[in-house]
């Protein structure tokens, strides 16, 4: 059942910029949807139209079965979250958290119950009687989050609420937002340019580029089956490895040379029009770094450019006539920078794209 529906939603600015180009999106009640894309892709403008802070140039916004396109923000019952800071210094933690409920006119007993519930969830119970200045920075952030999310509006709209935080703090807060959202199941739209945040939080990721939706799917699908080269590059840290070449018979031949990479059978069982594309035109092969491994009998020969630690992983950058590929391993590599190596691909991780349109073939 659609709870929030965007229909052919558009925004043109007076200078002619087409910020949002007619997007359609249905969001179910309780769903957490992340709008993900680079600066200028239209994600914040979309969010602001849902909030009522911008009027669409065309299209409709429907919320809970009603058309709210022309309603002012105050009549939509949406909670807008920018950042979690600026607590009131003269109030206790409990009073700070209760403040939005007091403003909404909730009776005292319900306020207290709501404050206790959220405080327990975010491990704030021992702090309720303290004043903000007696708290550490991290505790203040959590109180800010509790206050921002204590209410249960029909819709949470969050615009990069973690943007100004340090990496470690951002990660912690991201997890707590999800804990809180899963507990209350308030329908949420969350805007970010950070694909890691999107993957961690979302029930569904909506990838936007140049005012349009390029893919809307679960984090797993967006990651495993990117709909286009743009998504393949943008999602994943780093993005998918991409190699240009051609397909003949059941092999992929890199344009820059190197031995043929065998393609799995399922990948070649395509509809007829796609088979034609595969046979005639150039193709881009995509593989996630974790699906590439150093293997002395692998088809691609290259040279190690750089090795780097990345937490639990190790990044190995390899360069060859076919371009550059990153392999992700958990083991010690036992090879050195400038050393010649060979790469093999996990067949299940191979994807194919049509280079002109960028769209995914398989």
């Amino acid at each position, binding site marked *: 059942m659609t709870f929030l529906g965007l229909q052919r939603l558009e925004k043109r600015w007076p200078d002619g910029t087409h910020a949002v180009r007619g997007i359609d999106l249905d969001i179910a009640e309780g769903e957490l949807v992340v709008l993900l894309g680079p600066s200028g892709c239209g994600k914040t403008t979309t969010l602001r139209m849902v909030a009522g802070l911008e009027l669409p140039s065309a299209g409709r916004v429907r919320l809970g079965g009603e058309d709210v396109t022309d309603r002012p923000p105050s009549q939509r019952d949406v909670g807008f979250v920018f950042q979690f800071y600026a607590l009131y210094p003269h109030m206790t933690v409990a009073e700070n958290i209760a403040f939005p409920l007091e403003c909404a006119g909730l009776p005292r007993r319900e306020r207290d119950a709501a404050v206790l519930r959220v405080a327990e969830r975010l491990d704030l119970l021992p702090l309720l009687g303290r004043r903000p200045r007696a708290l550490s920075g991290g505790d203040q952030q959590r109180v800010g989050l509790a206050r921002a999310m204590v209410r249960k509006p029909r819709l949470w709209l969050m615009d990069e609420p973690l943007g100004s935080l340090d990496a470690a703090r951002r990660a912690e807060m991201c997890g707590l937002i999800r804990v809180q959202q899963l507990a209350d199941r308030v329908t949420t739209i969350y805007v970010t340019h950070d694909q890691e945040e999107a993957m961690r939080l979302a029930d569904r990721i909506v990838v936007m580029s140049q005012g349009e939706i390029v893919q809307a799917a679960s984090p797993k699908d967006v*990651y495993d089956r990117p709909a286009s080269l743009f998504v393949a590059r943008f999602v994943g840290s*780093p993005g998918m490895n991409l190699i240009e070449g051609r397909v003949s018979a059941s092999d992929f031949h890199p344009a820059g040379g190197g031995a043929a990479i065998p393609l799995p059978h399922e990948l070649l069982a395509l509809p007829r029009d796609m088979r034609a594309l595969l046979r005639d035109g150039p193709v881009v092969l995509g593989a996630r770094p974790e699906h590439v491994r150093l293997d002395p009998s692998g088809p691609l020969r290259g040279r190690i450019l*750089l090795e780097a630690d990345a937490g639990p992983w190790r990044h190995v950058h390899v360069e060859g006539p076919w371009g550059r590929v990153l392999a992700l391993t958990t083991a010690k590599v036992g090879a050195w920078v400038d050393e010649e190596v060979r790469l093999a691909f996990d067949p299940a991780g191979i994807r194919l794209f049509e280079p002109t349109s960028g769209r995914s073939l398989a």
Partner: protein
Amino acid sequence: MSAPLLAVRGLSKRFGRAPALESVDLEVGEGQVVALLGPTGAGKTTLLRCIAGLEQPDQGTLTLGGRDALALPPAERDVALVFQNFSLYPSKTVRANLEFPLRAPARRMPAAEIAERVTWAARMLRIEALLERPARRLSGGEMQRVAIGRAIVRRPKLFLMDEPLTNLDAKLREQLRFELRELARELHAPVLWATHDALEALAMADRVVALDRGRVLQSGVPADVYARPASPAVARLLGWPPVNVIPVRKMDGHWTAADGTRVAPAPAGSPDAATLGIRAENLTLAGGHAPTEVEVVELTGPAQVAVLHWAGIRAHALAPRTLELRPGTRVAPRVSPEHVITWPAG
């Protein structure tokens, strides 16, 4: 072994009564990239400013290329500082911005060399196509490339980078991270790189120096700092998924958490209490004796992270994608004793 290019010894700095740096020791060797990892307010910027000569430390020594640098004015230290918010001249072209540091009268650099260096830097940073564009018309990523270009045209002895990527989009940050790592390698340039992002530090650096509240907590090669953080404070700097930090007491020869969970055997002769650290990738989800439920599952891409209440904390476990996990899944977390990091009780 030759003397390091930069050596900082016992450097301290106070602002009023507040100590900003306390007896900091640090070295950067020729061609080395050293990451200064710490949260906001750790003292990273103050340290870089002391090295650049923009602040005068209260105590300590600073040698650059074997010379006492504290006596030198900033201009003679031959270091380049790249800021988080680098101010370019907005109405000037990229070329003019890049030429500017070379046009200082004291340099008396011939026009041909200026042109050559600008072309070289532009090629390095892939901004050749932007050279005639006014700086105000650049995107954030382009501006930061030009800012770095302004530093590299000078070919200084040492680069000081103060969170140069922090204000950029995540994707751009990741791209530039690898570009700059390669650039440092090609230039064979020593870099001291301040960041609050552990992944950036681990991926970029030959050495990591963890700094908090003005003190060096640990320094070492990335793999060692990652595998053996010296304290819970260092572990907390190491990003996401977080290291699980569990206060424990010794009971019947086992490290036991506040809720009674036996986390691991306590070696003979160990003290009565300790703090244990367990990396998320070392907390496996089966085989333990304290069953619990998964609260949240988060996808990282190559793997997934399960968040669960275990051993009295909100614990994080990195699990393979093949494991079927969802909120409510019953699991029994377990850690092998060799993966337990033991710190003194705190």
